[in-house]
C-alpha cells in the first residue's frame, strides 16, 4: 500500500497525544509544551511523507480497519488532502510560538488543557482534510470545532466566554446543518463514502439533492465565515491567544472551504447537476465579503480585530474563485487557501509578539514600535505586503489567478471588485505600517522593549520568509494543484 502506515500515524497520534497531555501535565506541568511539540513533530513527519508520496506516485487511499469502502472508512490522499502539509507547518510553528506565549496569555493551571486542546484542534483538522467518508468528516469537524470554541475561551479575559459562546452557537448550528445535508445524501444514495456517493448521485431525484447541497453549503459557509454569516468571527479571533488566532484564522476557517471543495468534487463528478445558481450566489457573496470585510477592517484600531476582519475579506476571494467555476479561478482559490494560511499566521504571530512585549494591542499605542522590534516589524511588513498582493510575494499569484479566472469566465465586474478589494486592503495595511514605522512613538518607554524570545521570533521569521519564497516559487503549488482542478472540472467541460 502506498504511504505505508503513515496515514494512521497522521490522524491518531495527535488524539492519543492530547490524551497523554493531561497525564504529563499532572506530573510535569512545565514539560507539556515540549511534549505537545514532540507529538506534533511526529505528525508533521507523517504529513511530510504523505505529501511526498502524493507528489511522487499520485493519489492513494488507506482503509481504516482493513475494510473496503463503502463498508469501512476510507482515508483519501489526493491533491486537496495535501492541505495537511500547511496545517502541520502552521500548526507546528504556532505550537512553538506558544511555548513562551502561553505564560503571558493563559492562566497557569489551564496550560496543560491549552496544549491538549491545541493538539485536538490540529488533529481534528488533519482528520477532516484526509477523510473520504462524509460522516467521519462530521465527527472530525466536531473535534476541531469543540476544541476551537474552548481555545477562544481559555484566556479567561473579560468577554472571552461571550465570544466563545457566540462562536459555539453558530458553529453548532452549522454542524447540524451539515449533518442534515449528510442525512439527505445518505437517504438518497444509501452510502457514506464520497466516491461512492458521486457515482450513485447521477441517478437520484434532483430536487432533494439540491436541498442537500444547499444545507451543506450553508453549513460550510458559516464555518468559513462568508459575509452575512461571519458575525462570530471577529470577536472570537481577536480574543483568542495569538497562536490560536493564527490557527483559527489561517486554518480553521479554511476547513469550511475545504468542505466546499470536497462537495464540489462529488458534485462535479456526478455530472448531472447544474451548479449555476450556487456558483453565482457564491461569487456574489464572495464579492460582498471582500468589500465589507475590508471596509470593517479599515475602521478598526485594535490590531487583532483588524486582522480578523481581513480574514473575512480574504475568504471572500477564495469563495469568489470557487464560484467562478473556471480553471484559473479554482486554482487561484485553492492556492490562496495555502498562501493565506501562511500570511495570516505571520501577521497574527507578529501581532502576538508585539502584544507580548508591549502589552498594547491598539494601533495608536503601538506607534513607532519598528525601532524597538525591527525584526518582528519587518516580518509583519512582509506579511502585509504579501496579503495586499504586491508582486513578488505569495499573495500576488493567487489573486492574479482569481482575476484571470474572472476574465476567463467573462465576468469583468468581479475582476474589478477584486482589484477594488485589494486597494482597500492596501489602505488599511498601509495605515498599520505607517503607524509602526513613520509615526513618533506614543509611549516612548516602549522603545526599550527589544525583541521577543527566540522560540517566538523564529516561527515569525520562518513564516515571513515563506511568504517571500512562495511568491518567487509560487508556481510549484500551482502546478501541483492544476491537474487536480482540471480533472475535477473535466466532467462539466470547465
Amino acid at each position, binding site marked *: 500500500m502506498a504511504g505505508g*502506515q503513515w*496515514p*494512521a500515524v497522521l490522524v*491518531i497520534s495527535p*488524539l*492519543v497525544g*492530547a*490524551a*497523554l497531555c*493531561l*497525564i504529563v501535565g*499532572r506530573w510535569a506541568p512545565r514539560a507539556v509544551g515540549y511534549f505537545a511539540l514532540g507529538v506534533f513533530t511526529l505528525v508533521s513527519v507523517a504529513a511530510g511523507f504523505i505529501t511526498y508520496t502524493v507528489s511522487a506516485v499520485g493519489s492513494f487511499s488507506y*482503509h*481504516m*480497519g*482493513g*475494510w473496503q469502502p*463503502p*463498508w*469501512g*472508512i476510507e482515508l483519501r490522499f489526493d491533491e486537496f488532502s495535501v492541505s495537511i502539509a500547511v496545517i502541520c507547518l502552521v500548526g507546528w510553528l504556532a505550537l512553538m510560538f506558544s511555548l513562551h506565549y502561553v505564560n503571558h496569555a493563559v*492562566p*497557569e*493551571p*489551564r496550560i496543560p*488543557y*491549552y496544549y491538549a*486542546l491545541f493538539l*485536538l484542534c490540529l*488533529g481534528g483538522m488533519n482528520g477532516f482534510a484526509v477523510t473520504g*467518508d462524509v*460522516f*467521519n468528516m462530521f*465527527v*472530525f469537524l*466536531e*473535534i476541531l470545532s*469543540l*476544541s476551537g470554541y*474552548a481555545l477562544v*475561551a*481559555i484566556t*479567561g479575559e473579560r468577554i472571552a*466566554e461571550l465570544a*466563545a459562546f457566540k462562536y459555539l452557537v453558530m458553529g453548532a448550528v452549522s454542524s447540524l446543518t451539515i449533518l442534515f445535508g449528510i442525512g*439527505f445524501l*445518505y*437517504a*438518497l*444514495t*444509501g*452510502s*457514506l463514502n464520497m466516491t461512492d456517493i458521486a457515482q*450513485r448521485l447521477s441517478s*437520484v*431525484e434532483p*430536487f*432533494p439533492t439540491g*436541498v442537500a447541497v*444547499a444545507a451543506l453549503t450553508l453549513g460550510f459557509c458559516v464555518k468559513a465565515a462568508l459575509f452575512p454569516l461571519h458575525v462570530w468571527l471577529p470577536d472570537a479571533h481577536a480574543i483568542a491567544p495569538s497562536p490560536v488566532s493564527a490557527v483559527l484564522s489561517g486554518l480553521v476557517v479554511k476547513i469550511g472551504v475545504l468542505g466546499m471543495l470536497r462537495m464540489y468534487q462529488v458534485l462535479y463528478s456526478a455530472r448531472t447537476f447544474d451548479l449555476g445558481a450556487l456558483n453565482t450566489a457564491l461569487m456574489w457573496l464572495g464579492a460582498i465579503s471582500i468589500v465589507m470585510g475590508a471596509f470593517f477592517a479599515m475602521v478598526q484600531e485594535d490590531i487583532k480585530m483588524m486582522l480578523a476582519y481581513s480574514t473575512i475579506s480574504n475568504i471572500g476571494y477564495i469563495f469568489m474563485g470557487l464560484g467562478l467555476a473556471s480553471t484559473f479561478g479554482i486554482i487561484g482559490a485553492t492556492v490562496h487557501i495555502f498562501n493565506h494560511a501562511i500570511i495570516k499566521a505571520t501577521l497574527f504571530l507578529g501581532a502576538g509578539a508585539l502584544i507580548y512585549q508591549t502589552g498594547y494591542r491598539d494601533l495608536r499605542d503601538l506607534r513607532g514600535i519598528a525601532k524597538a522590534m525591527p525584526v518582528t516589524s519587518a516580518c509583519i511588513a512582509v506579511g502585509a505586503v504579501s496579503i495586499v498582493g504586491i508582486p513578488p510575494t505569495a499573495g500576488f499569484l493567487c489573486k492574479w489567478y482569481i482575476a484571470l479566472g474572472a476574465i476567463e469566465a467573462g465576468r469583468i465586474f468581479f475582476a474589478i471588485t477584486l482589484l477594488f478589494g485589494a486597494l482597500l486592503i492596501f489602505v488599511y495595511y498601509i495605515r498599520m505600517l505607517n503607524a509602526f514605522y513613520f509615526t513618533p512613538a506614543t509611549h516612548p518607554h516602549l522603545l526599550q522593549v527589544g525583541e521577543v524570545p527566540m522560540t517566538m521570533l523564529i516561527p515569525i521569521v520562518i513564516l515571513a520568509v515563506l511568504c517571500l519564497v512562495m511568491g518567487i516559487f509560487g508556481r510549484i503549488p500551482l502546478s501541483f494543484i492544476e491537474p487536480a482542478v482540471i480533472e475535477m472540472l473535466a466532467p462539466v467541460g470547465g
Partner: protein
Amino acid sequence: MRRAFVIALLVLASVPLLYGVGQLPPIGSTDNPTYTHVVPRYIQQAEEEAGAENIVTAIILNYRGYDTNGEVTVIFTALVAVLGVLMITRSDSGPSVPISPVPVSPVTRFIVRTLSPFILMFSVYMVLYGHSSPGGGFQGGTIVGALLIVLSLVTESADVQRLLPPAVKVWLQPAAVLAFGVIGIAGLLLVGSYLAFPVEGDLVFLRVPWLTVIEVGIGVGGAVIVASIFWAMEGSA
C-alpha cells in the same frame, strides 16, 4: 417585529425542505438505496466477519471503528474544554459559590444507596455483553456516570470523589482514547492496518477480547468523563 420576521423566514425555509423530504425515497420500504446498497453485507456477514451478534456494535466497533475513535475523542475534548473553561484562575475572587444545599429526604438516600449496587451490576453487564445484546460501552459507562452523579447529589459530593483520587482520575479520563489507541496499534501490527480485527485464521480468537477491551475502555472512560464534567460544573472539582 423581529420574531415575526424570523418566523416568516423559517416558514419560507420549510417549504423547499418539506417538498424535498416528500421526494426522498419512501420510508419503510426495503427497496430503498439505504437498505439495498451498503447495509446487506452488515446484516448478513456481521457475525462471522466482525464477531458481534449485535450488528450495531459490529458497525461502531469494527466496520466503522474509526468513527467511534473520533466519538470518544469528542467527549474527551468536551471534558478538557469544560475543565479548561471552568478551572479557577488567579483573577477570580476565589472559589465559586457552591450550590445552596437542598435537604435530601432520608427515603431518597435510602433508595439510592440500596439500588446502587444493582445499577452498577446492570451497567457492568451492559458493558460486557454489548456485543451480543443492546447496550455497550458508552451506555453502560453513562449509567455508571449517572450513578456517581446521583450519589454526589444525595450524599456529600466530596465523599464520592474520594472514590477517584486525582492521580487515578487523570489516567481513567482518557481510558477510551487510550483503549482505542492500544487496540488500533495491535491491529496495525498483527493484522495490517489501524483498528483492523482479525477476520479469519489463527488470530480470530482475539476478536472478542479486543471488543471487550474497547468496550471496557469506553465504559470506564465514559463514566469518569461524565462524572468529571458534572463535578466541574457543580464547582467542587
